């Protein structure tokens, strides 16, 4: 993009922020948005969130008893190598199901930032690199990661048999006989557990892996009920679409409104942060700097794309309940090409203000830093950044940050959970 184009675009944006008048304490919609802009606002609001369809790969996704089991497993620290780590250790229910750390800490330190959970059931790809294609397959990755839960699938099968047998068998049917199954065995990094796994008969391995897959399916049945809740931005859009006066609960300040206008306009955030979850569910190299600490080389989707198509628990796997034709995202996935190098999934922006630090390894500490990064559009450490520079004044950066704050809201509370999404005792 040339400088002259940028200049012309800035002139066009000079009208931002004059879209509402204040009458008493309540701002009045003045119809300042064009019909096309209103359509864009509507597309970003929760009223456009697509209904959550069935997960063909998980026939238990809508099963309430599976969700209850999944909820219990999610918070159970016994599902770890040291007895201290649960899913909730990093996906902290009271913090939008994330941990606020640059890199997650399980039994060791990981190489990635914890992602929030709300709304992920809508996403075709999970993890920053999309290396799994369902919530249930995602849940299984950390459980056998040496630095996250640090356990093995045989261990988890034993725990389910000992602690959750009735719950499990009500949903999934009879557990296999575990009498001869080692306590710790799985295709994991730990050599002792791996050797134990390799010595198991193939049939026993398959039985244990099926229990393991069902653990993931139960956790997914719980997680898919965690949805984004209504934010002030959503209420604002409702009122704008109705052409009605704003209430204090729906009004945006002038800065917030100007930030919204930049977001869908000249700053072009909406290009990738589109739809009601404010993500295009795709992968982009945006030239994010290398982490301050030395981590293993990370090529993002270039690796994740290959991993998902060969994934042990993907949509077309023997543990999936889907027919191959149901797995369209996987069948037509892009799995090679330079665009995938160091490309990471566009994160949802819902609750983004409450979720520092940012980027896939928490490289940027503040939203101001993030916006500064996108404005400057530096070259990527490797691969090719898709960004082009955008000139933003300090006030415009402030306005964008103000707008992003309006995307905060509680998670949608499933029945039986408190307002933070924690199951009631």
């Amino acid at each position: 993009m040339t400088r002259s184009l940028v200049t012309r675009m800035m002139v066009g944006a000079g009208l931002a922020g004059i879209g509402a008048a204040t009458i008493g304490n309540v701002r009045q919609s003045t119809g300042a948005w064009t019909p096309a802009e209103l359509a864009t606002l509507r597309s970003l609001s929760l009223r456009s969130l697509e209904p959550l369809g069935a997960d063909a790969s998980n026939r238990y996704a809508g099963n309430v008893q599976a969700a209850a089991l999944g909820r219990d497993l999610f918070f159970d620290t016994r599902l770890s190598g040291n007895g201290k780590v649960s899913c909730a250790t990093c996906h902290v229910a009271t913090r939008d199901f994330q941990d606020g750390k640059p890199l997650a800490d399980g039994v060791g330190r990981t190489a990635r930032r914890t992602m929030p959970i709300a709304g992920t059931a809508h996403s075709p790809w999970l993890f920053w690199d999309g290396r799994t294609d369902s919530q249930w397959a995602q849940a299984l990755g950390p459980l056998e990661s040496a630095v996250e839960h640090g356990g093995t699938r045989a261990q988890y099968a034993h725990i389910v048999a000992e602690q959750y047998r009735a719950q499990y068998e009500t949903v999934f049917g009879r557990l296999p006989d575990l009498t001869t199954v080692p306590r710790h065995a799985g295709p994991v990094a730990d050599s002792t557990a791996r050797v134990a796994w390799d010595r198991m008969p193939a049939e026993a391995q398959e039985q244990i892996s099926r229990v393991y897959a069902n653990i993931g399916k139960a956790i997914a049945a719980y997680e898919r009920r965690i949805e984004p809740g209504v934010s002030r931005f959503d209420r604002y859009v409702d009122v704008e679409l109705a052409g009605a006066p704003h209430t204090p609960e729906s009004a945006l300040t002038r800065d917030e409104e100007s930030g919204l206008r930049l977001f869908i306009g000249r700053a072009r955030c909406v290009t990738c942060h589109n739809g009601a979850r404010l993500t295009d569910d795709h992968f982009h190299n945006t030239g994010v700097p290398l982490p301050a600490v030395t981590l293993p080389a990370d090529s993002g989707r270039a690796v994740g794309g290959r991993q998902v198509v060969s994934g042990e628990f993907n949509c077309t796997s023997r543990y999936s309940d889907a027919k191959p034709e149901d797995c369209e995202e996987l069948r037509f996935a892009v799995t090679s090409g330079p665009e995938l190098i160091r490309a990471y999934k566009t994160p949802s922006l819902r609750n983004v203000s409450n979720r520092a630090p940012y980027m896939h390894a928490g490289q940027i500490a503040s939203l101001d830093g993030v916006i500064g990064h996108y404005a400057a559009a530096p070259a990527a450490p490797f691969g090719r950044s898709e960004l082009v520079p955008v000139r933003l004044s300090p006030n415009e950066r402030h306005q964008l940050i103000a707008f992003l704050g309006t995307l905060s809201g509680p998670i949608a509370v499933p029945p039986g959970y408190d307002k933070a999404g924690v199951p009631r005792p």
Partner: protein
Amino acid sequence: MHSPHTSRSWRRAPARSAFAMAAVSALAMGCGNLRADAPSPDIQTVKASTHHLYRASVRPDVTPIPVRRLQRWTLHLETIDGRSVDTATVTMDGGMPQHGHGLPTSPRVTRALGNGDHLVEGVKFNMGGWWVVRFAIASSAGTDTVTFNLGL
């Protein structure tokens, strides 16, 4: 399909094409409006192929074409003199010339439906703006390409 060479070709397109430059200007004038990203000319869904061997048309299964949702298209092929083409090898690629990236999926023509119709599966667009999709067609009538522009 979706090879490195394909991706680079989409990146070069704006610099070579007067049409593309017009679209860039339209973008600059219309910021804030996703639909303004669409190029103004040449958004027909019935097109002659580059060397006029074929006439092709596309019909999405959902209109208006949605963003972020997988869709199926029907590609209709006939020779330029109007004979249906049922036996052909067809590949599809595309991208966003202004953004320099390809399609988010690898769509494929999966079967012939008869009467010159061919089913295209795995079509997806992950953002609004100007998209270009191109079919490479090989049949007994010869090898050619046909390109469609989309404004989402």
